[in-house]
């Protein structure tokens, strides 16, 4: 294999996939990236067996071929080079020589056959979502996923392809986000699939602002085709809990409050909550929220009052402050609506202004008040 490429091009392509390389793995080859040059196109592949990402850029191929190289090392070399032309060659023993006007670097690679193959994705069913909408939906859901692997389904985002709706749902059992894209054509591809958060993270990072990208769904994998890169992800094949059942339809109490003011208030007060439980209490009374926290271990105590729109009977309700802050931060309206029945049930949080294209609702479970 022998090709020449500009430093900036290979650097950009490599940077796209580098985060897919696992930080710790028992499979040595996963620390490598697969470099292929064919028909004046250089493609770089990285995988952690769950997610595979390929990026490409133009090059001058002198001899087509493939080799795998330690990814982080390659990135470290290229990062420090100025934008010069780089010649990259490898022999039968996978000895790699990188030449530039600065000098020459020799390193050992490995055969392509050692590298995991790219998952086969059946191109028959695919859907299209506008980039800006998809990006927003990913950003607003992945924070609510569980990070513990005891219930694998919750470590991913449930994506529901319906006839005229595309939904994404995330929950960790204590809070839940449901976001619905109403401007959507399913084209008969009715399907529920759970996509790992890590993959969605990479997708969001590589999504351009405008345009529409194609998503291909196969039996066990999903493929995102993005500009100059493709992301393949395994689908989590686990039953997702029946989330609709736990979202109440009617509420007896409703609160409207300025989002930023509420966040700051909760953040300040939560500094005084018990660091293990992060419990804060909201005492709702006529057009007022009293936010309070107490840390018996440290002896800290705080409370603040913020005005709001609330005209129902008084109510005391407690939450884990981190969950509440997370949720409020991921809203983007000026004001939010909080709907609740009592101190034992879930609270639903909505943006105050309706978005015609997207419906967003977030749910938080309370903690027991001592």
């Amino acid at each position: 294999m022998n090709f020449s490429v500009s430093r900036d091009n290979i650097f950009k392509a490599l940077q796209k996939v580098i985060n897919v390389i696992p930080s710790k793995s028992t499979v040595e080859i996963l620390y490598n990236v697969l470099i292929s040059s064919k028909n004046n196109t250089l493609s770089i592949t990285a995988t952690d067996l769950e997610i595979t990402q390929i990026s490409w850029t133009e090059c001058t191929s002198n001899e087509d071929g493939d080799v795998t190289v330690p990814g982080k090392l390659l990135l470290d070399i290229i990062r420090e080079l100025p934008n010069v032309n780089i010649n990259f060659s490898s022999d039968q023993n996978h000895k790699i020589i990188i030449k530039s006007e600065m000098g020459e670097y020799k390193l050992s690679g490995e055969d392509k056959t050692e590298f995991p193959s790219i998952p086969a994705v059946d191109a028959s069913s695919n859907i299209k979502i506008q980039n800006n909408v998809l990006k927003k939906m990913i950003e607003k859901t992945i924070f609510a996923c569980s990070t513990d692997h005891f219930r694998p389904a919750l470590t991913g985002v449930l994506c529901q392809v319906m006839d005229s709706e595309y939904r994404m749902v995330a929950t960790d059992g204590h809070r839940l986000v449901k976001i619905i894209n109403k401007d959507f054509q399913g084209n008969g591809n009715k399907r529920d699939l759970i996509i790992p958060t890590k993959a969605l993270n990479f997708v969001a990072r590589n999504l351009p602002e405008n345009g529409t990208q194609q998503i291909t769904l196969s039996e066990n994998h999903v493929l995102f085709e993005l500009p100059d890169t493709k992301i393949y992800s395994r689908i989590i094949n686990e039953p997702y809990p029946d989330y609709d059942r736990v979202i109440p339809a009617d509420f007896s109490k409703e609160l409207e409050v300025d989002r930023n003011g509420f966040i700051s208030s909760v953040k300040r007060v939560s500094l005084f909550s018990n660091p293990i439980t992060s419990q804060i209490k909201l005492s709702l009374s006529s057009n007022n929220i009293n936010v309070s926290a107490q840390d018996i271990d440290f002896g800290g105590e705080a409370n603040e009052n913020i005005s709001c729109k609330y005209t129902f009977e008084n109510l005391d309700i407690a939450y884990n402050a981190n969950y509440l802050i997370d949720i409020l931060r991921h809203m983007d309206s000026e004001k939010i609506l909080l709907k609740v029945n009592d101190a034992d049930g879930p609270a639903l949080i909505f943006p105050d202004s309706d978005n015609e294209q997207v419906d967003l609702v977030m749910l938080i479970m309370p903690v027991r008040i001592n």
Partner: protein
Amino acid sequence: MTDKINKIQILSDTLANKIAAGEVVERPASVVKELVENAIDAGASHIELFIKNGGKLLIHIIDNGCGLSETDLPLAFERHATSKIKTETDLENIHSLGFRGEALPSIASVAHVDIKTKEKDAATGLVFSVIGGKAGQLKRIASNMGTSIEIKNLFFNTPARRKFLKSDNAENQQILIVLKRFFLAYPSIEFNLNIDDKKIFSLKPSDLRIRIGEVFGEEISNDLLNVESSIGGIKIFGYIGKPSVARRSRTHQHLFLNGRPIQDRNLGFAITQGYSETLEEGTHPVYCLFIEMDTSLVDVNIHPTKMFVRFSNDRTMFYLFLNSIKRALNDQGILADFSQIKTGSAIQKVIIDEQKEALTESRKIDSIKSGKKEKLQLSRKGQQLSLAYFKSDLNKLENIQQSDLHETNIFDGFSQNQLEVRLWQVHRKYIFSEIKSGLVVIDQHLAHARILYEQTLKIFEKKAPVNAQKLLFPQKITLALDDFLVFKDIYQLMQRIGFTINVFSGNTIIIEEMPSDVKIGRESQILMDIIDYYKTNPHGSFNLNEKIAAAYAYKNAVKSGEELNNAKMNSLVDQLFACDYPFFAPDGKPVIVSIELEELAKKFR
């Protein structure tokens, strides 16, 4: 083959006793031991002893105990005749000193025995003699209440054994070793000892401290430290000598288990460890310690002399002893005292530094309500204690716990980098760090279990808030009937630590609320784990609260194999040191193990 040679014969009782005597009656001292035990078991409050020619000629013991009845007296000399146990179950629950029913017949088979006895309500006393195992006539005689037993011409019919006896003086010393144990174990009993018509000891009933002085010598009695502690039904008490009175031999070391003298290398080692480097090399601490514990937790029937016992949880015992000794020495300021360290020394700098930082932290509250002040200190103490531990060594730890943190506030200006305690996780199982004297290894699972255990107990005592998180997806579980019954037993307590579980129908339950530190997805697992743990019940001495707390702690603790980042390790270690007993897991396993540099150096030899 002639049938003469191979014929198996049942030994006569006398012969069998003679052989058994070899086990029980080794020398005069063992006779003394058996007879004094009998006297104590008989409830005597006054025991008189006369020894002649090292006990070879005469051992005469007079007690004021309950005496023997006419029917019991001849039986006492039958093999395995004992008044102390009747059934097999009694063996599990031995409260008397003797119990095997071997002593009297064994002694009687190798000596001339004359016994005079009178029960309290009997009109007359009885006299009975046995010579070389052959019983004589039972006669009536006027006598005082109690028993007087004379052992004469010990080993007269076993010349081999007699030959091996040492000089009178040596045998007397052995007798004294045996007797001193009784003197110490029963300070309330009056003992008078005469050897070759000379009064050696005349001990009036008194308390332990005075008795120790009488037995060990006056000079030691001023240097005794009181030891008292208990953990889950095990109680230890008694006195230890200051390091300054340590001896070159181990003769001043006495350990008693439920009144019975025992020897135990493990505990001996724990005590010596407790003194750590305060002992001069080659000296052994002086101690007289008593263990009181449920007899079912210990097997005393593993050796004929009853000197060795087996504890069902010897690790707990080890650490209980180690800690108690340390505490006793600390209380008296024997171990290097924090307050005695020169101001400005490294450790103090570190602590003050940490404290300043803690105060400037955002958590600092200007007006702390007085009731909470103590807690505030406690929690910061955790950090300081862990720091102190790693930066110095074990001995200073408890002193810091006792020193007032606020007094040290006046010191100023130290570099920040001393604060760092470097922790390494090894095999995702242990946390390693460096201390002055070597290496510390903390078991992450046990450490977290200890933290959760104490937190949970605090919740039970209403000293800490419950933290219960509602579940979005309640978990439905169908339990097996026996599990369901256990669940009903323990539900009340589980609710207090943050579980809300409702019975759905039959044996099916729904978990609706969990303590918020339980990981998502583990709801049903942890419930089953707690039920299983409760069922298997390894800790007889735990009460219900402790049992639930232990079950929850073990099952919710960080597992071996979980990766911990630095922040997590630090917080784990800090929380551990804020615990009341950071060195043990709830079931007594050690949480922290240290490897001395010396030990490492040895390996490289």
